[in-house]
């Protein structure tokens, strides 16, 4: 006979409020239902009450981990609506910050996954290494979490050669750490036992579920906006699109290890190629003519989309935020059915859900 098993809304495996109601038969999950909305803050509605520039601070606080990508997607939508050109140096600085944020996010995710598996030494090792990238973000922006780097028409802070050198040195440290993580995630018996052949989704199923980001790429889907719908200066940078075909928790986790290495490669190129010039378009945006635009970026968790409608005033008429977690979460329900209870936190956690992003 089946019984209900609650995961959340407050659970040691989850950092945020999320509630998954499992229907168990023994320890096998017969059915799963994920309930959302515990961290709703009315960000979209609040955005229509503030001016375009004040909304930057708001959208950046939609998420604590991918805050830069939120402000970037928002800026892309606003800049498109206002017809603003972005200086090339600003584009490079945006890519630099975005890739540092991607490494930070992926390392945080890998540590959290280790914690969910009860491997606290790997968790601590990963998170202590993550400090290097947090330090670089602080060096770059003055902040460890909400960087306030973006502004409409460019970025707010420039980098000099001293900062570039420190970031180069940090990349060497991070590369060593990530290679060790790569080794651990391919050789350690307990991590392999807990992630291989768990939550398997075929490529076809993944297409039907519409998953995005590393969750899709770990199912063999070649999808990364930086490559498939390139934006900013990504087309001038040399990096690999990481795709693994196994479709299990391990492959979707390991994609992130390899992506962190690619991000290090991108950052090195950015520091070498960054041109001289202004970091912001001097034109000030106050009011924007009626328009309907979209800003899309490849956030660490997948495609992040901002849909902006302007009506000629100094504030958005409507701002819709579509986060990767909202797209990937239904896939977790699919993966949970038939899984073992012990794997439930890992299956939910491995899509790297950001409930704050999703609930907005």
């Amino acid at each position, binding site marked *: 006979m089946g*019984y*209900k*098993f*609650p995961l959340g809304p407050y*659970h*040691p*495996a989850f950092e945020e409020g999320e509630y998954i109601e499992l229907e*168990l038969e023994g*320890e096998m999950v017969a059915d799963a239902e994920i309930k959302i909305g515990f961290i709703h803050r009315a960000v979209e509605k609040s955005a229509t009450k503030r001016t375009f520039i004040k909304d930057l601070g708001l959208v950046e606080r939609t998420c604590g981990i991918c805050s830069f990508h939120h402000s970037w997607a928002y800026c892309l939508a606003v800049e498109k609506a206002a017809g603003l050109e972005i200086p090339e140096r600003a584009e490079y600085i945006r890519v630099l910050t975005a890739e540092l944020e991607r490494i930070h996010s992926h390392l945080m995710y890998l540590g959290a996954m*280790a*914690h*969910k*598996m*009860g*491997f*606290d*030494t*790997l968790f*601590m*090792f990963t998170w*202590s290494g993550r400090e290097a990238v947090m330090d670089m973000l602080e060096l770059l922006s003055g902040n460890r979490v909400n960087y306030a780097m973006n502004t409409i028409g460019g970025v707010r802070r420039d980098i000099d050669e001293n900062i570039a050198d420190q970031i180069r040195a940090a990349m060497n440290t991070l590369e060593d750490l990530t290679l060790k993580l790569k080794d651990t995630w391919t050789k*350690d*018996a*307990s*991590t392999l*036992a*807990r992630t291989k052949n768990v939550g398997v989704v075929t490529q076809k199923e993944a297409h039907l579920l519409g998953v995005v980001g590393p969750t899709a790429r770990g199912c063999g889907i070649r999808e990364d906006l930086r490559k498939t719908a390139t934006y900013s200066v990504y087309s001038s940078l040399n990096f690999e699109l990481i795709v693994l075909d196994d479709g299990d928790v391990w492959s979707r986790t390991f994609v992130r290890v390899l992506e962190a290495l690619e991000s290090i490669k991108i950052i090195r190129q950015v520091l070498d190629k960054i041109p001289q010039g202004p970091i912001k378009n001097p034109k000030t945006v106050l009011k924007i003519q009626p328009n309907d635009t979209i800003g899309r970026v490849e956030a660490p968790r997948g495609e992040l989309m901002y849909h902006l409608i302007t009506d000629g005033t100094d504030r958005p008429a409507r701002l819709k935020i579509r986060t990767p977690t909202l797209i990937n979460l239904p896939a977790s329900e699919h993966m949970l059915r038939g899984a*073992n*209870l*012990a*794997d*439930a*936190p890992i299956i939910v956690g491995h899509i790297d859900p950001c409930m704050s992003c999703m609930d907005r």
Partner: protein
Amino acid sequence: MIIGVWVLWLIALFIWSLLIGGIDRKIVAHLQGRYGPPFWQDITDFLKLFRKRGKTATRSSSIVSDVALIVGIIAVVVGLSILPMPTVGGYTQLLSTSGDLIILAYVFALLAIVYVLIGFGGKSPYTMVGASREVSMLLSYEIPFILVIVAMGYRAILLTGLPVSTIFSIAGFLVLKQKMALLLLDPIFLGSFLVLLILGPAIVGAVPFDIPEAETEIVDGYGAEMHGPRLGVLFGIKHMKLLLYAYFLWTIFLSPVTSNIWLNIIMTLLGTLLMVLVIYTVPRAVSGRFRVEQGAKFYLLGPGLASIVLLLLSLI
């Protein structure tokens, strides 16, 4: 007189078990690049739990958990009364009887059943799953555990010529240790020791086999509904179970017998700490947690088969 000394020894061991818990946390913290809590943290935690108001969840059965905790305390006391206490001239058992080694094996099983009772008494999905996982793990490690004990007993008969009733007792092993310089030089005893070391994490509930507790899965499992003084008692029982198993391994296989009481006391305390480091600290620092069926499969196919081989070899 002897009972009074034994009670003092019991209290000292209880405090030592809490200190060992703190030392373990400190060592793991340093392995993970953290400072960790002070080594007396578990004593502070234990005392703090008794200052908290005891509260029972509406659907939980406090009677079942209270009975289970009393049984747990009795099991710990019985276990420690069987294991020899350092005294002037060597070691002395408070309770010595033929087959007390088998009683000790049942003490470990009984402590696992205490956790099961606490889990079923909790009546929450987390505690119930924790209890059922404890049963699964008990079934998987208990078979090799008993087989190894039997193998050791038969090997001891072969080596000493003592009757069966004598050799399945701690006293019999103390006699055997006086005959052999180091028990581990014998391949059967060495194999048994290794199997018992491998069984250790499951018996004491350490990662990678802390499956019945699994904080990030079932929120501490069988003990999820315990708090206040009841959790304090459970906390104490868990520490004593760890110490009991370490004490058992140290006494049977490694402890040298000297006539100096202080040397015996120090060696017993340090020996138990060493065993705790091997069966508890190191595994939880270098591995993640397995699923219950992976744990059961591991114990039945690894130590399970090894224990059968050891038993067959001991009979030859």
